[in-house]
């Protein structure tokens, strides 16, 4: 595995798992399943989150779409009232009326801009939504790949990833994952919860491991 392949693998893993929090649609599920061989080719099985990611895709492939959609609605509350597993960082901050949400969203906007990213967002995918945050990580991995291929230093891109994981995803995603597993609404979402947590926990550590080593060639 080359350094560029590793960054590509991580990018794909973030995209695949992040998309699991979107409404389940046939085309989206097929796309997820089809992306697995690409990740495997990039060395997925070299990393410990591989097992939970594969488990999630297997569950997704055999799930009934209506059941999935109903579980998705109940858990993430898209278009409904209060979600049992809100997929947004602000929901895990405590009192939503304290102004903390506004502060967080503003902080995230600044962080994304400082990374050189202008994420798309709307009412169903605010800046603190797990899918948006996973997309940000994927984009940072993409930036890392580009720099590796261009033979430039990846230090900044890797530092941004580590900061974002340490300050955001690494803090609230394990809580979301625990809630999803506790609610036990659908096996595919249980598997998604474990895959999400495993990727975030593992990737924080991998970045530490990576930065502690001399830079490898592209």
């Amino acid at each position: 595995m080359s350094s560029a392949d590793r960054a590509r693998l991580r990018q794909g893993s973030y995209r695949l798992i992040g998309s699991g929090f979107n409404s389940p649609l046939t085309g989206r599920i097929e796309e997820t399943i089809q992306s697995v061989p690409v990740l495997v080719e990039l060395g997925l099985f070299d990393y410990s989150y591989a097992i939970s990611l594969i488990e999630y895709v297997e569950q997704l492939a055999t799930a009934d779409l209506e059941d999935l959609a109903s579980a998705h609605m109940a858990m993430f509350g898209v278009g409904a009232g209060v979600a049992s597993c809100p997929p947004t960082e602000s929901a895990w901050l405590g009192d939503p009326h304290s102004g903390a949400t506004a502060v967080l969203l503003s902080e995230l906007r600044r962080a994304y801009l400082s990374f050189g990213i202008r994420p798309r967002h709307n009412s169903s995918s605010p800046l603190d939504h797990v899918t948006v945050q996973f997309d940000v990580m994927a984009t940072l991995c993409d930036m890392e790949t580009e720099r590796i291929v261009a033979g430039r230093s990846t230090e900044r891109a890797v530092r941004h990833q580590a900061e974002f994981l340490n300050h955001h995803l690494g803090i609230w995603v394990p809580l979301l994952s625990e809630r999803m597993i506790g609610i036990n609404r659908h096996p595919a979402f249980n598997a998604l919860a474990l895959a999400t947590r495993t990727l975030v926990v593992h990737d924080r550590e991998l970045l530490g491991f990576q930065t502690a080593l001399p830079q490898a060639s592209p």
Partner: protein
Amino acid sequence: MTQALLCSDHQTPPVPLDGVSLVEGLCFDPSAIATVRDETQHLVIGIHRDDADLVRLQSAMRRIGFDPLGVGIVDVSLLTEPQPLVAALAGAVARTEAFPGASPEQTMLVRAPGISRRSLLSAPVPLTIGAPSIDTRACIADRGCRACVSSCPVDALTWTGGSISYDKAACVACGICVTTCPIGAVVNPTVTYAAVEAQIAAMLDASAASVGIRYICRDGESSGGPGWLDVYVPCAGMLSAGWLLAPLAMGAVATDAMPCSESGCPLRNDHRIASTLTDTRTILDALGLDRERVGPVKVASLTPLPALSADGPMFGPSMERQVIEYLASIRSTNTAAASMGSAPIGTVSIDPATCTACALCARICPTNALTATTSSEVVIEFDPRLCVACAQCVGICPEIDRGAISMSTGFDLADWARGRREMRRDTVPACESCGKPVASSAMLERITAMLGSEHAATATILRTRCLACRGR
């Protein structure tokens, strides 16, 4: 079901083994483990450690859906005789079947030992190993316990405000915190008490001849030797005397611990390993058992200790007392006693002349060896059988400078037989306002003496009012 795959390079197994499949070139091409059957739930792999690329092996395990931490690995390089090979495989199967599963937080990435062929040409892929985690529901850090913190050789654990913080980046997963925790709240899924006991029991069951059990660091290399079977642990520094004695109690004829390198432990745990070996010999001496059973001895010349039926498992948190009591019952002795350097068994003494009966020692004691009850009197009791010599009672005592409490490491079966006994008793005056207990008389006298005559009024309030009523 459990399946075992054995690399058949270098040597053919000495006998056909039931349930074991031979795979040619397994060490050089780990993808060959894909031949594992669909119904296999647990997997054991026999490899030659010098040939095998552990990172690729882990990758191959994930590819067929196995968590590498739950796959038993046996180094078959030196297992050329039928009996040791069968016993080692049986042990690996038992340990694998007892693997409790690992959460994402219980894994850690490290550089693979040595330089793999792949890592020379590409981005190094890390090896995944088991990491400790703290069961916050069981942990008693809120009572002040920080036994794991003081034992950590790399300062990866800190106690803050009644809870333990864990810095995974600093941790080396040596396992010392696991065996130091007196209540088993620190867990490394790859080295649980139950799994190690199951492994040793299975090895002994599968051995027809005398067997010695030798613990080896995960990065260490077996020195072989007839009759010796290896049990891998994260670091030999994590072992306590109980770990070395337990195999003898279970039927092994000898026991030993080997650091990962002849030049010494890279974590500088050599002194811990040496102390543990010395303590183990001291305990055997005290019990009238052969101290030569500890260390690199000739196994064939020894016979197992007589076996009795044990009450429950040998391995567990603070296991020393149980193992010593079992060995004492073999010797039919109830008078053995010994002083030791570092074994986790101790005795606490309280000096009634200087102890103020504040009972902080009982509050922090993780095993309830020290307990306190408070009503119109405060009574502090001590049970030496429960003491793990963590010395936290000594560390927290506010009157330590006056020698109010002291601890010695060692055991005395006669003392154990006396059981729980009173160490300190003092009266507790009632609050003049609400009637609730104020504090022990000795503590109030001590405070009065420290305040002196110029603060007599304050002292009077302190002596007669409880904390809640003092401001009223």
